């Protein structure tokens, strides 16, 4: 311990005791008091919090197998690790505090850090010009698709078998959602990861391919540029209102070329952690939603990344690993893969602005109108009184058309705007914003009707062929209330389920 204490002398104003105090206050809850990655609830997270006693770090500027530099550690603590439970700390801790806690982290593995400091590899500058096409060719030559899939959606042939150093299941990054890259999503971040690999995971370093002159350094940059190009230029922001534009003719199938020109809206979904069994490791993290109507029917296309078309026997191994790793969460996972699921929930009575149902599939007092889709594929229309409590309605009129390709589901739902059952089935009126929420689950990851990912309420607004002024006003109004809803989901997830349904459901607090 004496050596550990000494090292703090170099951190400036803060002492050893400070690093430890900061750690115990802010970090030990996840990383454990002894740094072994075994804090409260650690077992429910995927990936698990880092075990600092091994000194194996993912995000480094050092060669594969080497310890990180102090700067590497500092940076990751500052910015956090997107797509995981690891938060950013720069808004809470000062630079000196972060420096002190980083020194303290190293004391959990004194042997690893006792030698000379690790050397960062030299990172040059990205070559100019458009190298995306080259990058794609090299991506294929290097066989990145074996893990990441041809389109980069984490559905490679080896994906179901991947595990980290601890035997926990690990997904290859979805290269089309680079805002979740652990180490940042700039071209030079990506290039650095290709040089160093992510230690402790199956993601290898590609340094040797350059050293063996299989590819040039420039080509590795091109791969990084190509990977970067697979995601939207900007991280998508969710907008509260999905616009259903008017169309002459509705595309009936998911791969109809007409969808390419329809505006798409990103709807993030998060693990369902309110109703039991809770789920902290959702496979789906967002949906792209597009809508059109032709004055008679509404067509909704929902697209989401899911590396498995469940059930699929090649994912049995994955499910086995999931159930072993996530044992502590409200009971065992299913032993068999179910189908993939999507539930589209609608307010039963969209005109009653003040009474939106509880966002987890409504409840007994205030059920939602729902389309329950599963990957058989089929869709049922009914009402839901809380997640998984679904009652089919007779004479459903919603139809579905589903397509699975390259790690992505695309499902088109079509329904007449009018409905004969006016109590349980909302009419999709033009010029009105109709509340909508989503639930998604991946059967191959042990997800089902309750373990899965949920969204808060959004709205679908059906265009009317009138001047834009009329269109803008309700959108602004809905945006306001839905924006509030987003906040409330977060709060509800913190506080656990609000008790009453109609008068204190989180969506109604104002």
């Amino acid at each position, binding site marked *: 311990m004496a050596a550990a204490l000494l090292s703090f002398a170099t951190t400036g104003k803060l002492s050893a005791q400070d690093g430890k105090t900061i750690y115990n206050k802010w970090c030990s809850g996840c990383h454990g008091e002894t740094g072994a990655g075994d804090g409260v609830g650690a077992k429910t997270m995927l990936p698990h919090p880092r075990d600092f006693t091994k000194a194996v770090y993912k995000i480094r500027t050092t060669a594969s197998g080497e310890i990180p530099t102090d700067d590497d550690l500092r940076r990751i603590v500052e910015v956090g690790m997107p797509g995981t439970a690891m938060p950013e700390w720069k808004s809470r801790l000062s630079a000196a505090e972060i420096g002190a806690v980083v020194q303290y982290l190293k004391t959990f593995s004194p042997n690893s850090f006792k030698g000379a400091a690790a050397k960062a590899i030299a990172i040059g500058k990205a070559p100019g010009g458009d190298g995306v096409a080259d990058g794609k060719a090299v991506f294929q030559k290097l*066989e990145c698709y074996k893990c990441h899939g041809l389109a980069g959606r984490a559905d490679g042939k080896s994906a179901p078998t991947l595990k980290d150093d601890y035997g926990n299941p690990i997904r290859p990054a979805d290269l089309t959602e680079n805002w979740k890259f652990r180490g940042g999503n700039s071209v030079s971040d990506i290039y650095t990861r290709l040089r160093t690999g992510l230690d402790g995971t*199956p993601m290898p370093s590609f340094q040797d391919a350059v050293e063996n002159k299989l590819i040039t350094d420039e080509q590795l940059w091109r791969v990084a540029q190509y990977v970067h190009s697979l995601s939207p230029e900007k991280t998508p922001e969710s907008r509260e209102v999905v616009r259903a534009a008017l169309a002459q003719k509705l595309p009936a199938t998911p791969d109809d070329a007409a969808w390419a020109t329809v505006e798409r809206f990103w709807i993030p979904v998060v693990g369902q952690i309110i109703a039991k069994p809770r789920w902290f490791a959702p496979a789906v993290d967002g949906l792209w939603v597009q809508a059109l109507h032709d004055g008679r029917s509404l067509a909704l296309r929902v697209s989401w990344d899911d590396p498995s078309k469940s059930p699929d026997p090649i994912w049995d191994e994955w499910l086995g690993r999931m159930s072993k790793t996530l044992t502590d969460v409200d009971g065992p996972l299913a032993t068999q893969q179910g189908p993939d699921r999507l539930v589209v929930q609608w307010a039963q009575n969209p005109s009653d602005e003040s009474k939106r149902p509880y966002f987890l599939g409504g409840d007994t007092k205030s059920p939602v109108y729902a389309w329950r889709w599963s990957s058989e594929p089929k869709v049922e229309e009914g009402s839901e009184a809380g997640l998984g409590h679904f009652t089919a309605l007779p004479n459903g009129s919603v139809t579905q058309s589903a397509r699975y390709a390259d790690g992505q589901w695309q499902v088109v739902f079509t329904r007449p705007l009018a409905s004969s059952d006016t109590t349980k089935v909302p009419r999709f009126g033009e010029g009105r914003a109709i509340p909508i929420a989503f639930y998604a689950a991946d059967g191959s990851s042990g997800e089902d009707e309750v373990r899965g990912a949920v969204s808060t309420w959004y709205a679908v607004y059906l265009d009317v062929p009138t001047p834009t002024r009329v269109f803008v006003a309700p959108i602004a109004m809905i945006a306001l209330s839905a924006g509030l809803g987003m906040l409330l989901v977060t709060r509800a997830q913190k506080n656990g389920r609000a008790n009453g349904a109609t008068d204190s459901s989180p969506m109604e607090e104002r």
Partner: protein
Amino acid sequence: MRRVMLGAVALAAGIWGCGGKSSGSDAGNTGGSTGAVPQSGGGGAGGPTGNATVSGVIHFTGTAPTNPKIDMSQESACAGKYTSPPTDPQYVVKDGKLGNVFVYVDSGVPNGAKYSAAAADTIDQNGCLYHPRIFGAVVGEDIVIKNSDNVLHNIKAVPKVNRGFNISQPSAGMTSKRTFASPEVMVPLECNVHGWMHAYVGVLPHPFFATSGEDGSFSIKNLPAGTYTIKAWHEKLGTQQTTVTVGAGETKTADFTFSGPKA
């Protein structure tokens, strides 16, 4: 000063086809492989050596579990190297003898004796399996990792004591060198692209180790006279040990018997 690990490579080739059109475990072989360096006067290798030998046979009783079939259909470049469906050679059993047991001197080598690394060992990836699967290396010794398959392999070391690494070889003909800094028996190596690929390297501070051949025999040569704890490790059946005293120029026998796992 040449290491005789070439024998190990040839042995592995014999047992698993090494990518040739061989279908399995009928290629004969004797003698196993050894990590011991034939010394000429105890020069460059540093620590003391001698001319004593510990050799023996690994016996096997009971029924060996069937080695799991490997589905290589996703990798035609590898699948095409086999005439019959490949299996994962966890148990190399023939006529009551057990191959692929790593036998090594665990204690008895003078404390502080330093053996510098000799010529590099090569581990080859061929037919989407490692050759050899079980081998030893001296601390600091270069391990040459070679890809004979025209597919992407990554090579991930998952040690407990040493630092691991995870590197990739996306093409045939690539070689990489890695070393381990501390003794550790065994360091698992794995490929994540092909989840069935496993190898184990025993890292020791000295060259007194061997891997049993298909006939179960092994031989640890060039030992100085002394009393040694000899351990025998099998990837599924665990570790056994015995103590042997050898005088200069002597050859002593240390046989081991492993039994198949209880059903």
